């Protein structure tokens, strides 16, 4: 790439919130036609920087130059008019509208008083042909896949004439195959002259997609360099500021007696449609079983069924030989289950209560935290102080509200509470979602320690790296059914990716063999 005037240049950006500098002298240069990755831990200041670029926040000091011209981006609409478009992590789409309706929303072409959807659809079709974004403009959002919905988001920015596209954690919801497709789309866009800023903490994707990367740590831009020839390890070390180990070391598993036995269960979702069907799985003491699958294939309902939060319609859940099917959540918890819920803000904690209260959320009614129905705040704080120290939960005090803590520390608090009770079974759903490498490493270590201590661990995750790193055995769920159970040592991402789409193990292995021979 030739060095020319950068499309975007952010110079010495400082953004202070009170005394706290979220951005502390950040420099960023993006060239035309470049895919530029922005790498940093949670809270490093990536989002703040992008919010400044898209006009949601104003910098305390520093300059923004677009094509060499200094600009003031003081509102999102200003950012739009400068050709900056954002592809959000959480899609901003209306389910009941068609692709076209969603794309034109807010900048509709009208014919008299009515919408001119035909012209709009034509324009969308030509954009989607130009950039290889295959999607049917007349399909309803609720009828298309997540990957296609993301394409709609991309088309939305292109339709509004964006030349600079910001992708915020775009792969969080995609399957491995969809991720490959997305990366191909990004390359297409770059080839057509669009510039892309890719925000992510997934190192493999940076290496697969980006031309250059800027590492941000603690509000400062540390370094910008070409991605070619850099290893994931180097990227991670730079991001965290110390050496990080990816592969959590673990001895071979020594599975013992069966702790959790799920026998042919069926669980309905909120609409009353069977989300889990004929599902059977065993987890033994001293092993980690990973449940891989794309979001929305029955994982949530399965966990809620096991833990008593939802009724199991048929079949049995047995814990240490005892039938716990459809027992109350507290009875199941007390039979020795620790549950790290997938949505920590909705289920895992009371965000408006204090950290200390949250750490007692499963034990508040027991001695010594309460005596004859009266809470003992001193005991509660004692437990909280112990857990905070033991699990390295960082908060200004144990009396701050849980909602004011960072995601990583919230998760550590949930993990601390669930692991501290010396349970026989740990159910960890998305245990590291949205966390950075440092926190992921820590939580993985803790889960493996549980296995070493002879506990049964069930990990449910959409992240194949996580599943592969932690599990001894891997079960793959698709449409509420187990597609296959494989030994973690004998499988790989490609195979799991195919299983996740519902292909049988045999078919997947054959397909992969063909690929190799071809």
């Amino acid at each position, binding site marked *: 790439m030739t060095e020319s005037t950068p499309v975007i240049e952010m110079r010495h950006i400082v953004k202070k919130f009170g005394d706290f500098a979220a951005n502390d002298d950040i420099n960023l240069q993006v060239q035309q036609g470049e895919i530029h990755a922005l790498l940093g831990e949670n809270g490093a200041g990536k989002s703040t920087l992008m919010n400044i670029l898209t006009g949601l926040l104003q910098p305390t000091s520093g300059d923004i130059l677009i094509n060499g011209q200094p600009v003031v981006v003081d509102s999102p609409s200003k950012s739009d008019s400068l050709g900056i478009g954002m592809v959000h992590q959480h899609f901003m789409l209306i389910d009941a509208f068609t692709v076209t309706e969603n794309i034109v929303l807010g900048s509709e072409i009208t014919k008299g008083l009515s919408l001119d959807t035909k012209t709009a659809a034509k324009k969308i079709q030509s954009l989607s042909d130009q950039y290889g974004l295959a999607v049917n403009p007349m399909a309803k959002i609720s009828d298309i896949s997540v990957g296609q919905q993301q394409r709609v988001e991309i088309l939305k920015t292109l339709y509004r004439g964006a030349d600079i596209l910001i992708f915020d954690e775009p792969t969080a919801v995609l399957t491995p195959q969809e991720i490959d497709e997305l990366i191909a789309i990004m390359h297409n866009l770059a080839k057509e002259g669009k510039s892309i800023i890719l925000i992510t903490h997934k190192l493999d994707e940076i290496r697969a997609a980006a031309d250059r990367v800027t590492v941000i740590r603690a509000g400062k831009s540390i370094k910008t360099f070409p991605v070619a020839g850099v290893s994931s390890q180097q990227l991670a070390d730079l991001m965290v500021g110390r050496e990080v180990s990816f592969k959590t070391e673990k001895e071979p598993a020594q599975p013992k007696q069966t702790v959790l036995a799920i026998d042919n269960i069926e669980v309905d979702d909120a609409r009353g449609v069977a989300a889990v069907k004929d599902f059977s799985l065993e987890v033994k003491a001293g092993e980690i079983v990973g449940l891989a699958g794309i979001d929305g294939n029955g994982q949530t309902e399965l966990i809620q069924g096991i833990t008593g939060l939802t009724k199991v319609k048929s079949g049995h859940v047995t814990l240490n030989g005892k039938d716990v099917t459809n027992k109350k959540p507290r009875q199941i918890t007390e039979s020795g289950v620790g549950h790290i819920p997938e949505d920590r803000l909705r289920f895992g904690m*009371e965000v408006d209560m204090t950290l200390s209260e949250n750490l007692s959320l*499963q034990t508040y009614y027991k001695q010594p935290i309460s005596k004859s*129905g009266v809470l003992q705040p001193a005991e509660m704080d004692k437990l909280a102080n112990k857990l905070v120290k033991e699990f390295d939960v960082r908060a200004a005090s144990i009396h701050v509200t849980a909602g004011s803590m960072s995601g990583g520390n919230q998760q550590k608090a949930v993990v601390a509470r669930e692991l501290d009770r010396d349970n026989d079974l740990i159910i960890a759903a998305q245990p590291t979602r949205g966390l950075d490498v440092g926190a992921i490493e820590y939580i993985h270590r803790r889960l493996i320690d549980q296995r070493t201590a002879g506990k049964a661990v069930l990990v449910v995750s959409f992240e194949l790296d996580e599943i592969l790193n932690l599990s001894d055995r891997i079960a793959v769920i698709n449409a509420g059914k187990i597609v296959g159970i494989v030994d973690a040592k004998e499988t790989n991402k490609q195979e799991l990716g195919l299983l996740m789409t519902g292909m049988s193990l045999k078919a997947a292995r054959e397909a992969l063999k063909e690929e190799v021979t071809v």
Partner: protein
Amino acid sequence: MVVQKNNFSVALFSVLFGLIVGAIIMLVFGYNPISGYIALISSAFGSMQDIGGVLTQMTPLILTALGFTVASTAGFFNIGLSGQALAGWVGAVWYALSFPDMPAFVMIPSALILGTALGAVAGLIPGWLRAQFGASEVIVTIMMNYILLFLGNNILQNTMAKSIKESAETTKQVGHNASLQLKWLTDLTQGSSVSTGIFIALIMIVVVWFVMKKTTLGFEITAVGLNPDAAKYAGVSAKRTAVVAMAISGGLAGLAGTIEGLGNYLNFFTQNSSPSIGFDGMAVALLGGGSYLGILGAAALFSVLKIGGLGMPMSSGVPFELVDIVIASIIFFVGANYLIRLIQKRIKAMDEKAAAQDAAKKSSKAASKQAKGGE
């Protein structure tokens, strides 16, 4: 809905603005606001009897406000406090009149418990309907206010024995065995109807505070109110807790009604509308900002306004309705606390600016002084 934790200054500003609105209205209609407010204050504190009246007025407001707070902590908007209070009132008076010979030490506690229980049942029904079927407690409690209002009137007019009635519209007065009034208190307040009820209400502030802040039950109610999913996850039965909270809420309202019946009016008479103590209690809780001390202060303020307002027409000619305008304005400003916070922010910013200018002036003066000194 959980009562928002307003800070003290929001409450203070709301009261101030409410009084200002009242003053403006008085001015517009040709009254003198200063003499109007002086009349209000002197009517509320002019004599021991007035003070007794204020305390009598405060008693049910404290209890219904506590009831509202408990329900709202659990995530319920209990508009049915009026009906629940009425249930306690009718039940306790009926019971007291039916057993005129029961000794006081049996009658009073049992009547208080009965009235509380009736209120609790009236609160429990909408609580259960929401927990079980998701029926909106707002609609159910509003409708139950009507049911209980007309049920109460019907019991009075058609069910109660002639022997315990004064007329078709009024019961006889409850006997000494059931009256909560104390001779020394009545004498001290020159014949006001203040009763033991005020002490019960004060004790209940402490009891409810303790239950809500210090016990596992209060912890569960708070947890369910803040996040029912997380509470369920932690093994709390969200349904049971919600029903219990509504029963406590209704029970407190029932107790308020019982004290109205056995302490204040000493009888029951045909009601034209749901008793206002229920709605005023909600207002007190909102002004109190979810704090238990705040409830005490807000109940005192409202009672002073109401009792003081009664004296206003006589001494200053300002109609009594003005007090309702002031109270309504106060609640309006509590609700519009965003506005107050904005004003506070502006004032703070102006102060800072002024301070900065001051400092700049001072330093420039100091500099010029120094310069002069140097000459």
